[in-house]
């Protein structure tokens, strides 16, 4: 898996997670893997960064302060801004089918149940999603 695009630029990942420990950990392991990473800690910040676009992948937590992850996606779609980032993976802790199916209808590529993953497995999934 290339960690750079055709122009040799590092692939950009946005981590949207309100839990500071997990957010910092995800940032650290993704930086170690050579990705260019950015973060947001609530839905409003996520919306602002996703609106600016240019991410190869967005890891979007569902339960967030200010605006939840699905609301972020709905707002992007309403404003026809849903194609500014290449892929979105939802982060969740319970496999809530209705939420996940709504996410899929809003264009997400898939979801990751956080409690199923250790950091190394998470990186493998992310690399797979970036292929």
């Amino acid at each position, binding site marked *: 898996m290339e960690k750079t695009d055709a122009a040799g630029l590092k692939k950009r990942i946005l981590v949207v997670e309100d839990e500071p420990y*997990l957010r910092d*950990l995800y940032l650290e392991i993704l930086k170690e893997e050579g990705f260019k990473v950015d973060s947001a800690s609530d839905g409003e910040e996520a919306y602002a960064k996703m609106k600016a676009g240019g991410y190869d992948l967005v890891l979007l937590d569902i339960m967030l302060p200010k605006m939840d992850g699905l609301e972020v996606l709905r707002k992007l779609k309403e404003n026809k801004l849903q194609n500014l980032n290449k892929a979105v993976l939802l982060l969740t802790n319970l496999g809530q089918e209705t939420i996940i199916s709504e996410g899929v209808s809003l264009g997400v590529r898939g979801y990751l149940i956080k*409690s199923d993953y250790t950091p190394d497995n998470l990186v493998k999934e992310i690399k797979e999603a970036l292929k």
Partner: protein
Amino acid sequence: MSNISLSSHDLLGKLTILKNSLFMLNRKCENEKWESSDKEYLKNAAETVEKLIQEVKEFSLEEKISSS
């Protein structure tokens, strides 16, 4: 969402932090010369957290089924 689902969600969130912390500690101990007994404590802690995660998930699923 019921209170029970919310509690399960919160609990899973905390357990996920523990799971990740233990993974990072384990990675560190692989790079350093830790006593094998210390590695065993870490392994036991990681296994216990994993069991708890599975139990909370099963509990949450049972609650979902019984409330539907």
